[in-house]
């Protein structure tokens, strides 16, 4: 079903002075929700801002809804909604005033009052933007991105610093957008956000896409999974290892607690339990640990701290 590409980026290179922010990046985002993950400084925002038409590629091609974001900006802008990482609002304007203004720039905007209600911005009243809470500012920026009824919405870290209520409200809105056929491209540092929302995840590091797929695909492939069980201490791990496929490992971590690492599938589970049966072992507390997106992310991008 998710066939239409909404974004096609090919061999994108973007440099700032001597620093290469994006280094030959290829990315295809299709209809639905695409999450772009990556450590700080990986090139996420540069990539997204190039798609939004803010930056001109040094080389490579970028197409958004089939259009060149720089040269065909006039045609593209009404069709996309943009939420910046911060700011974007007159410091002296009120939330509803700014939202109504953005609505006026569009031909068929959403019902502003309903959107204000939905995102809990009604309580902002006459407070000017600079005095709103961070969460209110964030939700206003989100509302501004969707009010023009766009086909595609860019959200740059939409829930950074939000409380759990506001986070869930944002997630619910993204789900509703998706259900109504709006495509969403979002950057985030929250793996649970990507797992919850995204049909497709692209992991960017050092200016390139290093992995892409559905959250399930990413968690299944690449990273090894783990199977744990407890039994009597001192089982013959060597014999177990012989029964397992070649790329698996097995170890007794603490007396009576065993771990098998490798590509954990139903076949492997059956192999382990039949080995236990042959050796008269009752595998108690048997568990399969699925890797989370966070495990995959850390495995791919390493654990050292970034800028």
């Amino acid at each position, binding site marked *: 079903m998710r066939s239409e590409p909404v974004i096609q980026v090919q061999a994108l290179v973007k440099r700032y002075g001597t620093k290469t922010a994006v280094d030959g990046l290829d990315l295809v985002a299709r209809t639905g929700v695409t999450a772009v993950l990556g450590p700080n400084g990986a090139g996420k925002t540069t990539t997204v801002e190039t798609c939004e038409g803010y930056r001109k590629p040094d080389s490579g091609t970028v197409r958004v809804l089939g259009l060149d974001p720089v040269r065909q900006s006039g045609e593209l802008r009404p069709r*996309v909604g943009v939420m*910046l990482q911060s*700011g974007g609002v*007159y410091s002296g304007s009120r939330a509803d005033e700014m939202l109504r203004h953005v609505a*006026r*720039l569009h*031909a068929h905007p959403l019902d502003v009052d309903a959107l204000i209600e939905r995102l809990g911005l009604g309580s902002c009243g006459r407070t000017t933007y600079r005095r709103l809470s961070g969460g209110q500012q964030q939700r206003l920026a989100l509302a*501004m991105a969707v009010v023009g009824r766009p086909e595609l919405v860019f959200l740059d870290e939409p829930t950074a610093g939000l409380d759990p209520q506001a986070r869930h409200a944002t997630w619910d809105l993204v789900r*509703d957008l998706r*259900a109504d056929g709006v495509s969403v491209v979002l950057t985030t540092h929250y793996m649970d956000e990507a797992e919850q929302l995204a049909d497709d995840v692209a992991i960017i590091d050092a200016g390139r896409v290093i992995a892409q797929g559905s959250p399930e695909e990413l968690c299944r492939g690449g990273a090894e999974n783990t199977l744990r069980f407890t039994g009597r201490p001192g089982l013959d791990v060597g014999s177990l290892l012989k029964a397992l496929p070649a790329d698996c490992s097995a170890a007794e971590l603490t007396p009576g607690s065993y771990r098998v690492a490798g590509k954990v599938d139903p076949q492997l589970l059956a192999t382990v339990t039949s080995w236990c049966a042959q050796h008269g072992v009752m595998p108690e507390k048997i568990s399969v640990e699925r890797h989370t997106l966070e495990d995959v992310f850390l495995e791919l991008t390493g654990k050292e701290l970034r800028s």
Partner: protein
Amino acid sequence: MTATGTGTYTPKPGAAPLPRMIAAQAALETKMLLRNGEQLLLTVVIPTLLLVLFSTVDIVDTGAGEAVDFLAPGILALAVMSTAFTGQAIATGFERRYGVLKRLASSPLPRWGLMMAKTLSVLVTEILQVILLTVIAFALGWSPRGNPVAVALLLVLGTAAFSGLGLLMAGTLKAEATLAAANLVFLLLLVGGGVVVPLDKFPSGAQDVLGLLPIAALSDGLRDVLQHGAGMPWGDLGILAVWAVVGLAAAGKFFRWE
């Protein structure tokens, strides 16, 4: 993808008609300006105070005739500078700093439309200033003369010159630097630009240089027409035109949106 939602957010994109976008943008910009206390101080309070104070109290020798006849044209020039240059530079500098220009750049409103809206907003503000200051000046006994077309031409060219310089500053300096510099320039030009202090009070060498400033050309031109009933003050119009072309071209070339 099959829509399974309620249809509330079903895409229906489209830009509003250009005139509507520009009018909405100009209205919002004007509202922001009129809501801002510091801007009102600059554009309304200071010109009004100077006009009333210098007309009623004999502080500087304004030459022969009623003081208000000398002062009103200078104060009108100051009003143009306060809105087109100082106010616009400060507001735009902070809009750039807070990502407003960036966000609007991804809206359906084209950049030239945003600039046109800013110009409209400046013109609307100036009209309000001119009405207010004219009423006050009349109350103080002002008796203007001259050709209204020449006055309008001076005001428009002055606005263009000051807008170019203000946008150049806002688009190249940091917001705080723009704030400081725009206020400093306002103060210096208020004193040295023939607004309330006649240029002939300065040494003759300085007069020649000061006379080339846009504020001096504007106040001198307005005074020639409104106080002395001159026809077209071509010299002053020429100076303003040069500033306008240079300022707007430089702003167009060097303005950075982020």
